[in-house]
């Protein structure tokens, strides 16, 4: 069963239609890229998957989004559990106003994980071969967790000697990897990323892309991007939106080599952007 399937999703902001009749299945353990011109509803679609949309004023959502077979728009849905299951990476990294260490420990503490649960989580992580955990000598579970997820985000070596420094002192590229580690630390099944590299320099962007390719073994990743070349580099599956409508979707290879719709062709060839 697919983690995420969307059925007849409509989103409006006041009188403005943002998404119309979106129905799609998002494949597991792959990187799905949502592409399309600015203002076509990419971010709206992404944020509909963890109900972050509701923080905006006057938003109306109809239709169904099933995650693990459960409609997340059902009023009985546990919003906090949903957001624990679906991690989120914003366009510009926003470190929480605390130290590097606390940024990672924040999520697990909020969800009141016990030492045992943390150790179990780390064991699960090490058996899934995304991260090699060989010589962790630390005894404190939270310290171990922080080290693991910072390593998983490719940041550990750069920050291990200054974990208690404010996270805001990191470079913006490091902050985005910190944000990734923070999102991973609550052990989500899905990672949503909203143009995660658009604020970064090319080298940091490359690091994030590299981590994504590694992480897809274990997590389902959905990335919004307006950079076509980035979608080509990292995506396994592509969703093309245009003016709030789902125009075309499919395996990345077919999508880029053999687009069906006229608008998709125009977008890929660069006639529209």
């Amino acid at each position: 069963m697919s983690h995420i399937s969307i059925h007849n999703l409509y989103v409006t902001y006041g009188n403005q239609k943002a998404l119309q009749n979106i129905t799609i299945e998002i494949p597991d353990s792959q990187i799905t890229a949502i592409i399309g011109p600015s203002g076509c509803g990419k971010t709206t679609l992404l944020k509909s998957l963890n109900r972050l949309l509701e923080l905006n004023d006057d938003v109306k959502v109809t239709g169904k989004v099933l995650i693990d077979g459960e409609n997340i728009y059902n009023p009985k849905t546990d919003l906090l559990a949903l957001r624990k299951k679906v991690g989120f990476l914003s366009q510009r990294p926003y470190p929480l106003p605390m130290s590097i260490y606390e940024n990672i420990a924040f999520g697990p503490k909020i969800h009141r994980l016990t030492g045992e649960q943390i150790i179990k989580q780390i064991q699960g992580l090490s058996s899934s071969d995304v991260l090699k955990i060989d010589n962790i000598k630390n005894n404190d579970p939270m310290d171990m967790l922080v080290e693991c997820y910072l390593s998983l985000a490719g940041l550990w070596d750069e920050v291990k000697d200054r974990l208690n420094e404010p996270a805001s002192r990191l470079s913006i590229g490091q902050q985005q990897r910190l944000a990734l580690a923070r999102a991973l630390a609550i052990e989500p099944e899905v990672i949503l990323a909203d143009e995660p590299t658009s604020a970064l320099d090319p080298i940091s962007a490359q690091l994030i892309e590299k981590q994504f390719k590694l992480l897809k073994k274990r997590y389902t990743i959905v990335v919004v991007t307006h950079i076509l070349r980035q979608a080509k580099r990292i995506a396994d599956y592509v969703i093309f939106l245009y003016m709030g409508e789902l125009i075309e979707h499919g395996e990345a290879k077919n999508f880029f080599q053999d687009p069906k719709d006229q608008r998709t062709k125009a977008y890929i060839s660069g006639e529209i952007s």
Partner: protein
Amino acid sequence: MKRRSEEIFFKSLMLISLFIVLSILIGIIAVVIARGISALNISMILETPKGGYYLGKEGGIANAIVGSIYLAFGASILSTLISLPVALALQKEYINRHFANFSRLMLDILWGTPSIVYGAFGFIVMVYFGLRASLLGGIIVLTLLMIPIMVRSMEEVIRMVPHELKEVSYALGTTKLETALAVVLKQSLSGIVTAILLAFGRGIGDAASILFTAGYTDYIPKSIFDPVASLPLAVFFQISSPIPEVQERAYASSFILLCIVIIVSLVSRFLVRHFSRHIVR
């Protein structure tokens, strides 16, 4: 050429205005020191008045110093406890925009209400309950006076917290309360302290609201039900005394009041700088 001279003209205008503002402060301090220096000595700070606060030339104003500190700190603590939740509640996460705007308007009106009106209101309430002028009464009325100032200034800084920062916090599965306490308050800490200081300054300097509610006395209060002296009222009584030596003591009292405000400002700014190192800019 015209635009260049315009630029120079307005720049000088700004600097002159700034200079005027600063010289007012310097002027106040200078006058207070010049007139009060002869009365300023260690017994002024450590002793209570001898021969009454109105006519006595001996002793000090320890009663008023201690009283003002009790009143202003007590009221600051109490109104911080009330104002913080109110400021958080005014955010769009909790109440709708129209009700929030209505509340802001009400608070602005309260902010503009003269403190003597607070004093009269407090007095009526105290008479109704059969209470006499006391430290408790003074603290409560000062708290009422401070709340609108605190709420409005806190709320301005809390509203400045970037939406995206709250969004990443919510995305981790936090409740509104957890985000408010762990993220929003931390991010806006320096502004919150500034708000408390602003209200503290207004509270410690206010005479009219505590005239009827806290009373005045030559002694240091032993319980919160005793009347209490305060620096602004000490200044007021001393300066209206017919005796020149007592009038000088009014300036010495003003100087002490100014010193307390300056010390509290400096200390809290230092603390804020220490605690706000995590803030995301």
